[in-house]
């Protein structure tokens, strides 16, 4: 599904949700739920949990649609942030982490390549982000991936990569500063 092409359609539907239009919520659901379910499932690792998270996501969209500002954020960014936060909240509440196996910093990062099946993958922002991620040290990339895709905390990442907590914090913080500088170049 070409989500970027649907950007204005999603933004307009969010406007109508703010007016209490349930059909508009269904439009947003139809256009975005497969992506957001994928995001929740990736973080939670279990279908039942991901389904519950997805339900919370769209109830939140219904309640907060008026907060969406088309001038500041793209609708997909806004929706993905809600989905990640709901999934992470559920993960934290369950006091467990699905992905706990050790991460080898020097491991093959070739699976980092854009997925050809995703329409979003062809966007300029996606290409630029990957370009900047490639400028980071392998261990920094690995830590950011564990956080973004597996929903790991600092503690979990430190454990998975077998480094002290303080070291993990400075890796991530330094990586985020470098990432921001690169994206703003």
């Amino acid at each position, binding site marked *: 599904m070409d989500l970027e092409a649907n950007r204005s359609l999603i933004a307009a539907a969010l406007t*109508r949700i703010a007016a209490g239009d349930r059909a508009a919520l269904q439009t947003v659901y139809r256009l975005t*739920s497969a992506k957001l*379910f*994928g995001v929740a499932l990736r973080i939670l690792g279990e279908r039942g949990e991901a389904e519950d998270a997805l339900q919370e996501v769209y109830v939140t969209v219904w309640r907060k*649609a*008026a907060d969406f500002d088309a001038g500041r954020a793209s609708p997909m960014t806004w929706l993905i942030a809600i989905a990640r936060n709901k999934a992470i909240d559920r993960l934290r509440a369950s006091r467990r982490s699905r992905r706990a196996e050790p991460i080898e910093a020097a491991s093959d990062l070739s699976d980092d390549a854009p997925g050809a099946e995703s329409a979003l993958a062809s966007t300029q922002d996606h290409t630029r982000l990957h370009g900047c991620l490639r400028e980071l040290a392998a261990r920094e990339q690995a830590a950011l991936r564990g956080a*973004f895709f597996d929903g790991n905390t600092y503690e979990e990442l430190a454990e998975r990569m077998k480094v002290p907590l303080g070291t993990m914090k400075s890796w991530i913080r330094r990586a985020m500063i470098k990432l921001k500088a690169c994206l703003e170049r």
Partner: protein
Amino acid sequence: MSDATDHNGLPRENLLEDELLAAEYALGVLAGAERDAAERRVARDGAFARMVEAWDERLAPWAADIEEMPAPPQVWGAIVEALPLAPQRASLWENLALWRSLAVAAGALAACCIGVIVYLAVQPPGAPLMASIDGGGRHHFVATIDPRRATVAVAPANYSADPARVPELWLIPADGKPHALGLLRADQSVTITIPAALLPHLNHAATLAVSLEPPGGSPTGAPTGPVIGAGKLTNL
């Protein structure tokens, strides 16, 4: 060099700390009390919330690497069952300004009630429509449409003027594509002529919405600023 940087061009320390906290929250590495505290700060500190949004924007393209997965059909049913009656219902209950405007509206409604009953029974085609363009009580415009004259009159029932931006009116037909109608005023009612091409869309499937735009209106022909209110067209 801006105020936010020191003589080396590096961010000042507290700003850097905020920026890093925003990055950590958006990335999702915080847990427990730290995550809760960051979440509360997003809700009450606009500048911090903007930093988090900027990080969301930077990181979101990464989600393209996650494969789409059709959600099972029962999820939509569960969502519909869990929906509150209307968005932002909680804030409506707390909003004094809305209650005041409701009290005024109720008085006006009582006065014209009998007239409406008679009117509905004999409603001709091209009958007037109205929309209560409500942004959860904080902003509220009332629009009345006269399809035969192709005009919409919009009165600000409750609107706190934005110093930098102007309210712009949009018609959103069933297809969801907004059409600019014109700029509104904070201090008085405005009557706008509706383009002939949009007249067929004046029905119950359409919504009127107001967004905040740069002076002169949206430069793109689509809403660029926040939507501060929306309401469906209904019979007057």
